[in-house]
Structures are given as structure tokens and as C-alpha cells.
């Protein structure tokens, strides 16, 4: 087991370096003078050509690209991701402010998608080829096919503008003190809409995984022992059918983050997604780099965790 964990960690190291190289390459591709990004356009206009050249030299902008990359890397790994063009915060401070709301939104959406999707999949598998199977299949495909922003606009139209039961935007009522109910009230629409797509994914996976498992011999054995069907389905089939989903869950993390850009922008939810969107509009590339770096590292870590967890619950993996 220890050997397996060490092996997985070792494989992650080159992937982490690969991520940093790509993030840096994106930055290098971005238009605009890095000096202007560091000093500001106006400051540069007041400088002579020699002063600009001296500034370039002292900031290391004339160094070959690999030296600049290592310089950036060694600062990034210590948490120094640079400064955005506006505002008094460092990129790291901005990320720290915004990561909380995003985590809350993603975690809620993740739980909701499981609670909706897995039962859908179980129902489809147990009633394979019946009209319920068809109906839920169509529903699951609809969840996979509806653009999240269309669903968001529709939900806003119905629940905020017509029925007036949920607020259209924000983390909480403006000016009101923090209250848990207020937060939940604001969280419901964005998290359910973000969850819709993944509920479809879970439903499809659960269905096929359950169908595969239901045909395995240990399930037949459980039936032959005379166990009640409910026990066979829940304790024997479902538990094993859900195992491969550890991997799917960790893969969905990146998609959830991507989806949160659109959802946070529509609902004015002040998380990383909305920050990334504003950074794109203002061409604040250091912020975008920071978001991509944090997000990728999180996904990498969760993939590693999923691999290890999977090996813990399924011994076949670590002996392979």
C-alpha cells in the first residue's frame, strides 16, 4: 500500500511541473508589455528609454525565458503570485478572499447532484427498459444538454421575477447582517443549477455501473442466500457499483470549477469564477494565472486522493 501511494505521488510531480509550464506559457503568450503590467502605463511614459532598459534589466525581463520561468516558479511556490493592475491586494490575497464562496457553491452543488443523480440511476437500472427507465433517461439527457446559463435565466425568470421566492443575485441581502437562512436562500438557485449537469452525469454512471454489477456472481449469491431484494440492491450491488465513482467525482471537480464561471457571473456570486471573469474583461493576467494554478493543483491533489482512496476500498487496484 505504501509503495502504491509513493508511486502515485511520484507520478504527480512531473504533472505539477507540466501545469506550471503551461500556466507560464499562457502568460508569455498574452499580449502587452510585462513591464507595463508591473509598473503601469503612465509610469512608463514618464521614463526615458535608458530608464526603461535599466528597469527591464533589474527586473530580469531580459533574461532568457527559462530563467524567467524559474524565477516566476520559485516565487509562485512560495505563494507570491504577483500584483494585479488595480486595487491594493496581492493576487494571493484576492484568491483567499474569493475561494470561500466558490467552495461553498461547489460543495453544495456536488452534494445536491449526488442526491438527485444517484437515485435516478438506481431507478433506471432496477426498471431497465421500462417506461420509467425511458422517462428518467430522457430527463438525465436533458440535464446534460441544457446550457447552464439558459437554465439560470429560466429559473431567475420564474422564481425571482414572477414568483419572487428566491433572490436574483449576491451572497446575501445587501446591508443585512449575516444570517444562515439568508445565505442558504441565496445559495439554493445557483447551486441547484450548477448541480443539474452533474446529476445527469451521476444518473448515467450509476445506471450503467449498477447494471454491470447486478449481473456479477456475488449478487446472484446474495439472492440465492435468500436475502431480501432491498438488501441485495443497497448493501451488495450499490456499494460496489458506486466504487468507480470515486474517480468520476474527482474528475468532476474541474468541470464544476469551469461551470462556476458562468453561474457565478450570472448570479453575481463573488467567488473565483466571477473573479476570473472580471480578470478576463480587465486583462488582469496574473489573476487568471493564479486561478488556473490553484484550480489545477486542487484537481491534481484530488485525483491523487481519489487514486489512494480507490486503492483503499478496492484491494484489486493496489495489487495490479
Amino acid at each position: 500500500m505504501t509503495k502504491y501511494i509513493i508511486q502515485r505521488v511520484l507520478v504527480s510531480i512531473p504533472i505539477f511541473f507540466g501545469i506550471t509550464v503551461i500556466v507560464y506559457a499562457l502568460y508569455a503568450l498574452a499580449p502587452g508589455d510585462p513591464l507595463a503590467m508591473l509598473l503601469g502605463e503612465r509610469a512608463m511614459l514618464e521614463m526615458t528609454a535608458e530608464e526603461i532598459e535599466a528597469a527591464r534589466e533589474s527586473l530580469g525581463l531580459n533574461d532568457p525565458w527559462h530563467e524567467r520561468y524559474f524565477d516566476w516558479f520559485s516565487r509562485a511556490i512560495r505563494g507570491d503570485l504577483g500584483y494585479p493592475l488595480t486595487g491594493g491586494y496581492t493576487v494571493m490575497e484576492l484568491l483567499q478572499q474569493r475561494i470561500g464562496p466558490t467552495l461553498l457553491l461547489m460543495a453544495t452543488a456536488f452534494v445536491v447532484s449526488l442526491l438527485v443523480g444517484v437515485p435516478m440511476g438506481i431507478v433506471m437500472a432496477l426498471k431497465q427498459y421500462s417506461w420509467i427507465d425511458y422517462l428518467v433517461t430522457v430527463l438525465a439527457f436533458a440535464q446534460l444538454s441544457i446550457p447552464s446559463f439558459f437554465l439560470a435565466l429560466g429559473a431567475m425568470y420564474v422564481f425571482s421575477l414572477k414568483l419572487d421566492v428566491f433572490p436574483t443575485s449576491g451572497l446575501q441581502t445587501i446591508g443585512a447582517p449575516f444570517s444562515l437562512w439568508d445565505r442558504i436562500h441565496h445559495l439554493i438557485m445557483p447551486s441547484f443549477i450548477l448541480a443539474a449537469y452533474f446529476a445527469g452525469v451521476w444518473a448515467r454512471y450509476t445506471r450503467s455501473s449498477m447494471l454491470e454489477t447486478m449481473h456479477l456472481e456475488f449478487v446472484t449469491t446474495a439472492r440465492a442466500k435468500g436475502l431480501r431484494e432491498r438488501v441485495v440492491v443497497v448493501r451488495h450491488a450499490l456499494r460496489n457499483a458506486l466504487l468507480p465513482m470515486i474517480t468520476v467525482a474527482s474528475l468532476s471537480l474541474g468541470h464544476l470549477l469551469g461551470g462556476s464561471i458562468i453561474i457565478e457571473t450570472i448570479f453575481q456570486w463573488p467567488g473565483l469564477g466571477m473573479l476570473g471573469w472580471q480578470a478576463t474583461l480587465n486583462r488582469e493576467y496574473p489573476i487568471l494565472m493564479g486561478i488556473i494554478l490553484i484550480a489545477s493543483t486542487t484537481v491534481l491533489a484530488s485525483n491523487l486522493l481519489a487514486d489512494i482512496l480507490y486503492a483503499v476500498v478496492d484491494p484489486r487496484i493496489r495489487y495490479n
Partner: protein
Amino acid sequence: MTNALQAEQKLRVDTPARRALRRFTRHRLAMLGLGVLLILVALAVLAPAVAPHSPTKQELSLYRKPPNQDHWLGTDTFGRDVFTRLIYAGRVSLSVGLVAVGIYETIAILLGAVAGYYGSKVDWVIMRAVDVVMTIPTMIVIIFLVSILGPSMYNSMLAIGIMGWPEPTRLVRGQILSLREMDYVTAARSLGLPTYRIILRHVLPGVVAPLVVHATFGVAGAILLEAGLSFLGLGVPPPTPSWGNMMSSAQTLNILERVPWLWVPPGIAIMLSVLSINFIGDGLRDALDPRGMETG
């Protein structure tokens, strides 16, 4: 004599391709999807002939008119006919989907074939690159790329194409790894055929079926991505209509509440096309893979 003839005919009829076609045509949802998609494609291709008005000509006297006899889906802020723009937008959205997937499946075939066939160090490098790109959240990097390259239809195709290749590369590689152990490939090699010929003629055809299924779902995903980009104003720039950018004006509550004919029709169009393509993909998977239980 007649019996033998009948038996032979029966044999000829039941090729694997025919069996796959039969399974596909029996898939009700796939046939429904195919029907809807054909209508959408026909409308898009024949747009100049079918559309009742001009997609870009502005008529300020027709400011946000609700649906009526002359303008079935009403008019937008610039007095343009929404139905006409919807049809023209189909051209953009569907072609972005197709081209983006074409780009990344091509990359995937090349990289996957090289990794799978040569193995060892080449394989290791390519598969780590796959891991790296798969770890980076796609949507954020696509937004970054489009903001660097500038919003345009071709840049959307390119950005989606650049980020989509890891998953099909894995698929191609895995398929090739299992195919190259097959006896008929060993036979081809012992006959002294050159490597590129073995890859092209004997191994790649076995990769096609799963790749077609993957590409079908890929087109659906790419249409959703493009719609999202255009909705955010990073995809296809106006005045060219795309389903996503037709909806961006609904980000203001006033339009969302009072002018629903601006954002509901394109939303339904995206959903219908993506749903149809997903149904077709589901049918293809059942048809092309007899073991067919895998979901993606």
C-alpha cells in the same frame, strides 16, 4: 439448391455493419435525435433561402416587437427578426462544434497512435502531457486563450480544439495497445509491412468505432462550450448571430423579464441540438459496441 442460395443470401445480409445499422435504427431516441438534427442542419444550410428577413439589417422602427405574423419570434433591440437570426446562428454554432471536434480528434489520432504504437519514452511523455491538460480546468483556459487571441468564431474553434484532445488520445492509445497484440497485426508485421502502413491500414480502422461515439458526444459538448463563450461575450462577436450571443442581452433583468422572445428561442435551439446529438451518440454507442454498457 434453393436452400443453399437462401442461406448464402442470409449470410451476406448479416455483416457487422448491417447489424450495427439495425441496432442504431431500432434505438428510438437516436432516431428522434437524428430527425430533429436533420431539420436543424437543413435550416442552417438553407438559411439564405429559408429565412424570411435579413439577419443583420437593422430596422429601428421595429424595436423589440413581440412575436407577430410577420416576425414569428419577434424582433430584437435593433429591429432584426429573431427567427431569421436563430436560423443563421445555427450555422455558426453547428460549425464551431464540428470544426472544434475535428481539430482535437485529429490531434488525438496522431498522438494516440504514436503513443500506443511506439510505447516506452514517447508514450510516457505523451501520456504525462495528457495528464497535465486533463488536470487544468478546461473552461478557464479556453476563456484565457480566447481573451488572448481575441473573440472570433475561428478562435473559439481553435481554443476548444486545443483543449479537447487528452480524453480521445487516451482512448486511441488504449485501443491501439490492445489491437497491436492481435494476431492479424503480428501477421502483417511478419510479412514485413512498414510501420506506418500497419498503423494506417490494420490498426486505425479498429479505433474508428469508439472514436466516432466519442466525437459525437464531443460535438454536443463543443456546442455548449461555444454557447457559453458567446453568452459571456468571448465567442462569436456581434453582429454575426450565434445562439449564445443572442442570449447575452438577457443578463439585464429588464430584458430577462420583459423581452423573453430574445432569450428563450436560442436557449431552446441549443438544448434541442445538443439533446439530439447526445441521443445520436447514445444510439451509436449501443450500435457500435455490442457489449455496450459503458457511459461517458
